[in-house]
Every structure is written in C-alpha cells, then in structure tokens.
C-alpha cells in the first residue's frame, strides 16, 4: 500500500472544502499531480498544493492508496468524501462531512470530527477516536435511504441525530450521545455504551439499539417487553427490552409483526 502524507502548511482564512482528499481522487497520481487537485475556499477555486505539503505518491488504484493527513485540519471539510477503498488517517481533529457518502475503505480520525460524518454510508469502516458531531451516519436531507452498510466506531461522545433513516450497518459509540438516535430507522444496529439523552428510536420501523448507560426520558412509543440476557460487543449482561415505535407502521414478515428493538442494560 503506497502512502501519501499531506501536511497542512497554509491554514485557510475561512473553511477549506477538500473533497479531493480521498484514495479514489489520489489513485494513480504523483505528488505533483496530487498538488494540482482542485479545492475551494469559499467561492475561490484553488489547488491542494497551496494548502498542504504533499509527499509520497499514490498507489495505482484506490485500494492500495493510503493517505495520512497531518497538521491543523480543524477547518477542512469533506475529507474521505465518497471514498470506495484504501485508507485515510487523520492525525488531528477535522470538520464536517468526514467519509460522507463513503462506500468502502477504512478511515481513522484520531481527533474529533464535525457534523454529517459518514452521511449515507454504504460500506467501509470509520473509526473516530475523539468525539463525533451531529448527524453521524444519517441520511442526506429529504432522502429516505440512509446509511445502508459499513461500521462506525466512536470512542468519544457523539452528537444528536445518529443514524437517521438508517437501513443497515452498525454504529458503536463508547461515550454518550445527544438526543435522537436512529430516528425513522428501518434497519441497522447502534450500540451506545455511555448515556443516551432522550428521544431514542423515535418513529423507528425496524432496527436495534443497545444503551448501556442511562436514558433520561423514554419514548412513549416503546413498550416494555420483559428482560433478556444478551452478549453485546463483548459485554454479557441483562437487558430490559422495549419494542417500538408503536406509533409507526410495521411490516409483517411471515405472519409476525416486526418491531424495532431497544435494549437498556440493567
């Protein structure tokens, strides 16, 4: 796997939209060609080379291209935009749309990430060692087809509106989350190891949520349905089970009504 290292050398006055920082855009290019890739600061077009020091050359295909992003990229957006393969490592914290519309490959953000990370994710793996912003793994505005595959791990806390309109894939948050988890979800799984604020699983049609910590206010649409012993992500424990959202329409599969499941660790 060929590695390209880009280091911030000329911080943008406003915010830098760098949707060309992805293995797919770098594949088959030399350092100089990568430096010519277009980026935008507001409405003024520029090139990657003006903001980043670029060393090493990309692999022939996206799959064997690794990108390491160094320096202060807190005001850089769209890193890993629409990537389908390869690897991206962001040493520090970055801004919005990390791995948005990502189809494959592995993206690791060692610091925090902004909102709209992994929007409408179809596959691949996203690891955020710091905190994640709002709308993690959510659908784009107005789209009823949200995250459909892939795996997201957030070691810190996450924001509100995780996994909105989720269809598949998995999100694990080691820390706490804000309001709204898997709203309108029709599939997929979310595990929250910290506390979840409130409004969990609103208008959920199908899918599973595990909450290890506390929930301030339960959704009235989730009916208690006994307790169950489960092993979740390496933790064996007794969970209080809730089915819902009873206010939403539910499909019948082979005669049985399918509900969303919410498990709260006791």
């Amino acid at each position, binding site marked *: 796997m060929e590695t390209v290292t880009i280091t911030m050398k000329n911080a943008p006055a406003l915010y830098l939209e760098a949707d060309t920082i992805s293995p797919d855009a770098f594949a088959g290019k030399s350092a100089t060609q990568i430096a010519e890739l277009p980026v935008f600061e*507001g*409405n003024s077009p520029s090139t990657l080379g003006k903001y980043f020091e670029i060393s090493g050359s990309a692999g022939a295909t996206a799959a064997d291209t690794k990108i390491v992003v160094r320096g202060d990229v807190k005001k850089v957006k769209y890193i890993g935009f629409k990537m389908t393969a390869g690897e991206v490592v962001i040493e520090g914290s970055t801004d919005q749309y990390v791995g948005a519309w990502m189809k494959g490959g592995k993206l690791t953000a060692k610091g925090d990430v902004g909102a709209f990370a992994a929007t409408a994710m179809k596959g691949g793996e996203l690891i955020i060692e710091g905190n994640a912003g709002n709308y993690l793994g959510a659908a784009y*505005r107005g789209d009823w087809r949200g995250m459909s595959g892939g795996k997201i791990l957030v070691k810190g806390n996450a924001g509100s509106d995780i996994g909105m309109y989720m269809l598949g894939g998995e999100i694990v948050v080691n820390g706490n989350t804000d309001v709204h988890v898997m709203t309108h979800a029709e599939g997929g799984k979310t595990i929250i190891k910290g506390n979840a604020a409130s409004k969990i699983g609103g208008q959920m049609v199908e899918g599973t949520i595990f909450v290890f910590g506390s929930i301030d206010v339960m959704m009235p649409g989730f009916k208690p349905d006994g307790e169950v012993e489960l092993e979740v992500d390496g933790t064996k424990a007794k969970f209080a089970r809730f089915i819902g959202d009873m206010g939403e329409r539910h499909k019948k599969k082979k005669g049985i009504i399918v509900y969303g499941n919410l498990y709260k660790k006791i």
Partner: protein
Amino acid sequence: MTKTITDVICPFCGTLCDDVEVVVSDDGKKLLEVANACVIGTEKFLHSQSADRVTKPRLRQEDGSWKTISYDEAADYTAKLLAKAKKPLMYGWSSTNCEAQSVGNEIAEVAKACCDNTAAVCHGTTLIAVQDIGLPTCTLGEVKNRADRVIFWGCNPAHAHPRHMSRYSIFPRGFFTGKGQMSRKLVVVDPRCTDTAKMADIHLQIEQGRDYELLNALRVALKGEWLPDTVAGIPAEKIREAADILKSGRFGIIFFGMGVTQSLSKNHNIDEAIALTKDLNEYTKYSIMPMRGHYNVTGSGEVFAWQFGFPYSVDLTRGFARYNPGDSSSIDLLCRGEVDAVFTIGSDPGAHFPISAVKAIAKVDSVCIDPHITPTSGVSKLHVPVAFNGVETGGNCYRMDNVPIDCRKVVDPPEGMMTDLDFLTMVCNRLKKLKGVA
C-alpha cells in the same frame, strides 16, 4: 380632501390580511388613517409617516459616526463588497417582494454567495421536516369553510397573528361551518396558559421541550396501544381523550409555530406532527399548516425553490446550488466564522439572532438594507434606507398557505428614497461589470 384605498394588503405577518383600508391625502403623499388592520399592521402603515426616518444611505466612519452618502456610492460599495468576498452571506429577503428577491438571487449567483431567508430562525426546521415526510396541507379558505377541529400547537396567534382567528380559523362562518366558532372545537398545546389557550376547549399544558414525546404518545393512543402513565406532564387518560376528540371531527387542521420549531428536537417535532396528521387521515380529513411569521418569508422560499431548487440556506459558492441546514444555514455560518461579508435585507438579524451570531456580523464588512434603524443597522458598516415594501411600493408576496397576493403601493415614499428593487438592480448591474459577466 382624501381618498380611501380598499383591499390593501398588510405587510407584517403571514396572515397577510387583504381587506385593509387606507385613507391617504389626494396627492398620495400623506397617509392619514388605517382601518381593518390589527394594531401591529396599523403601526407599520402609520410609522411610514414618522418624521425621523433615515432617508439617505450612510457609511460608518472609523470614529463611529455616520457619513451620509449617495445611493450611487452605496451601490458601488455593496457591489465591491460582494465581488471581493470569498463567501458572502446574503440574509433576510422576508420583508421584501418577490421581484426584489428575484434580482437578489441573480446577484447571489453572480457573486457566488450563500443566500438564506428568515426561515433560518423561524420555520426552517419545518422545511427540513417537510423534506423528510411531506406536508398534507390546505389553503386557509378550506379551514374557514370546513374545519370543525382546530389545534394550535406551540403557537400563540392571539399575539403573533392577531386577525388569524377572526379571518380564517375560529370565528368565520364558512360554507359548511355556518355556526362559526360554535361549530369548532379548539385544542391548544403550550407550556404557558397563553391568551390563545384561555379560549381553548382543551389546553394541554405540556412540559417545555417534550413536544416530540407528546406527539408520539398521541399517535400511539390513536392505535390503541400501551402508554406510560404520564407523557410530557400530561396524564395518559387526557392524551387518549384528546386523541378521541381529534379523531371525531369531519375536517381537522393543526396550526403549529415557534413552540415546536425552536425547541429541543426541532425538525423532529414537526416530522412527528405531520406523521400524526397522516395517521388522522385514516379516520377523517386532516391538514397541517405552519404559522409563517414574516409576510413574505414563504415568497422568499418559493422564489429560491423555483430558481435554485431549495427553499432556504442555499450555498452558491460552487456556481451551483448546494443545501444542508447545519452547514449552509446562516446561524452556523456566522457562529463558525465561515463568512467574510454579510448583506442583510428585509429582516433584522441584529435583534433576532443569538448574540454570538450578531457578533460575527459586526466583525465582518456588512451592508444593511432597511427603512428602520435597527440593531442590524447599528452593527453594519453601510445602512441603505429603502421604501417600505407593501406601503410605499407594491410587489408579489405569499401568504402562510403559499397563496400569492399582489401588494399595492398606497403612499409615496419620502423624497429621493429608492425602492429595494431599484437599488438591487443598480447593485446587480455594477456587480456584473466588476465580474465581467454579460
């Protein structure tokens, strides 16, 4: 002698009353009396005659004083500002007519700016919810002629839309509602016992910030499923009783306002309210309608939509429209420091934005087009007074139910005062010259 102009449109709130009568002097220079408008509308018409109006553009000097300049210089300043900026924000548009908005859109496209209207702090989250789940709505005449169940959820028309109840929702005697308010049941949901709630048959005094839970509970009650004992401070029995009342009508209408759009979980409150309306459509006929604030914020949304494709928070920096509230919306752009110039028209962000956003406006170069002296003009570099829209100049505007009504000019503006449409056209031509566009 005087003459009375009838069928005048009041340019203040989304109710857009169009039966106002204005008495003006024969030469059309002085406005003397206003009839049929509420106290706010009357004040807007009469304030156009006040003596201490700003009539000339003025530029903030280093020492903080205002220097009066000509409209030409003001147009040059604005065009240079927009041409130079890497990410200008053009905010407001809600108290001006659709023709001015159309020219404003042309300016935004040439300047590759972000443009947004007051929906960002009003019904923006409603538009996000509509984009997720749709909007079963109707025009206000349908409410007048058919509604027998009226719900005001998180809105206080007694204060914000004073004539709404007498023109459309509670008191009028429509085609099928001959007994007026006697043929209607009013339900109000509000954490306070507002003046609207005092008129209600049922007032659900909800715990503030828990609208999402209560709406979800109503949908669960409609399906006859299990409910916890109390939801959002309302006992389960009262929720089931309210659900039965909603279900029992022949035509129900839910009006909702800032109570649900501005409190916790924002767009999801409206999302759930629309889902409740769709569920109620299985039992009887139901519609839902946002109580839009400004008289032409709906119009701004419509013009943005048919020219760019999105109703607000439009980002044109790439030469085409992108949209994602939270990234391209005014408050986030300002609080995160993403814009380097601000152009406001037909609104007052200085008074109605959180202070952190107003500080961002004060930090960058900014132009404020407004006939009044406002906190926005107080923090802007250039203040360009223009004629009162709807009083001193006409133009199309859209009511809260998207019905277009053509405003009319009733009195002349002060000597030498330009309309916003003329000023924007001047700015547009100069900007095109600066950018070398045909």
